[in-house]
């Protein structure tokens, strides 16, 4: 089912005209109501009247994460505080959190695009949605929750953690749609297996997975262990939260709900738009958001935009699965390494669990890359030479893909911390020295 056919299947020319109109309005609201943007526009010598159509977007300055910190907490708000009905904040690993606000209208639009997300994965009002994303300042839980209600599904606001209860209610309430991080879905499957609970016999049919990077290989693992179609969803609190883009049942790129969140792909070094279909940094402009008219926000996520039409009937452009970030790229002895490359290699080796940890450290002046891999019973042997051969195989395959020699450590099961929210895959100890 397509939740909002009028917008999701809009003729591309007409959509572009609508986007241009909305952009003109957003630029004006930003300039007139946010001193930070007025200053920024003035510095670039751009006035709201210079923005007449969508093509003028390149005249506008970028917004970056640090701008949220500089204006902490409410400096980007374009409306009086009494019109703000909700705030969310993303955890700042360094310094202050990134704070976002929503007017009542913003919450409505967010619920709408989140409902579109659920419908993209086959959800309808008949469904039972278990939301196992965290509720709170994080946008995941409440974002999917409001989307589920807008869709008309029965929503179980579980929040993250408490796996035994998750499984019990999944069974008893007949959950059909599961929303959580991809790594948590595997943890649920693991805990179900340990308890002798056959998760394959539940009514689950689709899972909405996002909030952390994951790979195609992980998708096949999830689809093997849980009876779901694993749908990749995308969102970020700066733009709104979950519901910015979602795969449809074709599972071939994520439809961007671009009548509200306008995407561009730029070359991260030059800031220039890349050629159509080329990989680069994803940039979003919130065309309709009242509380924060976010202009050309650099997400640091690397992707491509596909303009070809999807068989599902939606006309929106599709972004490719995010496979890296401009800032999660590890530079090891001068070589660029993305955690997603490591995961792809590991998942291809039979028996390797999706539980691994990448540790980067310095030994003297040299960077050292260590990858800890949990040894499951499928991998284990009573013979040292077989385990050494496994380790050598992981080593060889990673070295050939990464062009860096990693140290492979085989570790005991469950020794790598399981997270309820975003899985922590990388520890870079070089930062601490």
């Amino acid at each position: 089912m397509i939740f909002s056919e009028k917008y999701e299947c809009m003729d591309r020319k007409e959509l572009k005209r609508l986007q241009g109109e909305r952009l003109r309005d957003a630029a004006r609201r930003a300039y007139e109501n946010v001193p930070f943007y007025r200053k920024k526009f003035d510095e670039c010598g751009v006035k709201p009247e210079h923005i007449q159509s969508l093509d003028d977007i390149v005249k506008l300055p970028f917004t970056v994460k640090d701008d949220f910190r500089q204006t902490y907490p409410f400096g980007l708000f374009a409306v009086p505080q009494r019109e703000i009905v909700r705030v969310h904040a993303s955890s700042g690993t360094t310094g202050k959190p990134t704070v976002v606000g929503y007017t009542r209208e913003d919450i409505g639009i967010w619920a709408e695009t989140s409902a579109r997300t659920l419908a993209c994965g086959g959800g309808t009002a008949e469904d039972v949605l278990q939301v196992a994303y965290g509720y709170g300042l994080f946008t995941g839980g409440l974002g999917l929750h409001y989307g589920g209600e807008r869709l008309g599904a029965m929503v179980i606001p579980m929040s993250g953690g408490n796996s035994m209860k998750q499984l019990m209610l999944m069974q008893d309430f007949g959950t059909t749609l599961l929303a959580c991080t991809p790594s948590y879905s595997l943890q649920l499957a693991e805990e179900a297996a340990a308890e002798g609970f056959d998760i394959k016999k539940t009514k689950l049919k689709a899972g909405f997975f996002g909030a952390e990077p994951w790979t195609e290989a992980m998708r096949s693992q999830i689809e093997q262990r849980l009876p779901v179609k694993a749908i990749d969803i995308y969102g970020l609190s700066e733009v709104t939260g979950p519901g910015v883009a979602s795969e449809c049942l074709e599972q071939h790129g994520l439809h961007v709900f671009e009548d509200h969140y306008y995407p561009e792909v730029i070359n991260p070094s030059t800031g220039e738009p890349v050629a159509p279909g080329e990989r680069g940094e994803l940039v979003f402009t919130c065309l309709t958001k009242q509380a924060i008219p976010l202009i050309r926000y650099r997400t640091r996520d690397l992707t491509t935009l596909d303009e070809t039409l999807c068989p599902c009937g939606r006309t929106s452009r599709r972004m490719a699965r995010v496979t890296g970030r401009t800032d999660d790229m590890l530079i090891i002895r001068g070589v660029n390494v993305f955690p997603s490359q490591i995961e792809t290699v590991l998942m291809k080796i039979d028996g390797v669990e999706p539980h691994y940890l990448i540790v980067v450290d310095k030994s003297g002046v040299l960077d050292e890359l260590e990858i800890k891999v949990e040894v499951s019973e499928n991998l284990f042997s009573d013979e040292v030479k077989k385990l050494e051969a496994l380790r050598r195989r992981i080593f060889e395959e990673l070295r050939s893909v990464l062009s860096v020699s990693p140290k492979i450590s085989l570790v005991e099961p469950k020794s790598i911390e399981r997270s309820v929210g975003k899985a922590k895959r990388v520890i870079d100890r070089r930062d601490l020295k």
Partner: protein
Amino acid sequence: MKVRQISIFMENRAGRLSEVMQLVGDSGVNIRALSLADTSDFGILRLIVNDVDKALGALRKAGHTVSVTDVVAVEVPDRPGGLAGILVPLSADGVNVEYMYAFVEKATDKAVVIFRFEDADAALKTLKTVGISVLSAETVASL
């Protein structure tokens, strides 16, 4: 006449062996023989116990990676050349030993050697031909 041996994957870190021993002990299982193969950062603990299933249950429940392998327990005369007398015919028949470890029986003058053969059936055949006695799982459990 094979004996089931439990292998446990262990990271090389302080206190790990004692934790595993405690766990096995608490489950009321008695260890008959053990060996620890180690590399620089992990080890494989191999155990012969009096109750394999009980030990497996306790280890798996605690989240350990374990496996069960068939090994052969052979009684060896406790005198110089005792072990050679077993290895020579095996080697003559081209039977490979992956690893082995030994313990001395309490009440007799014999030693018991646990063998992990590449091909346990071929080994058993050779041992039978040359008349070397192999211990049953029940015997090993009650040693």
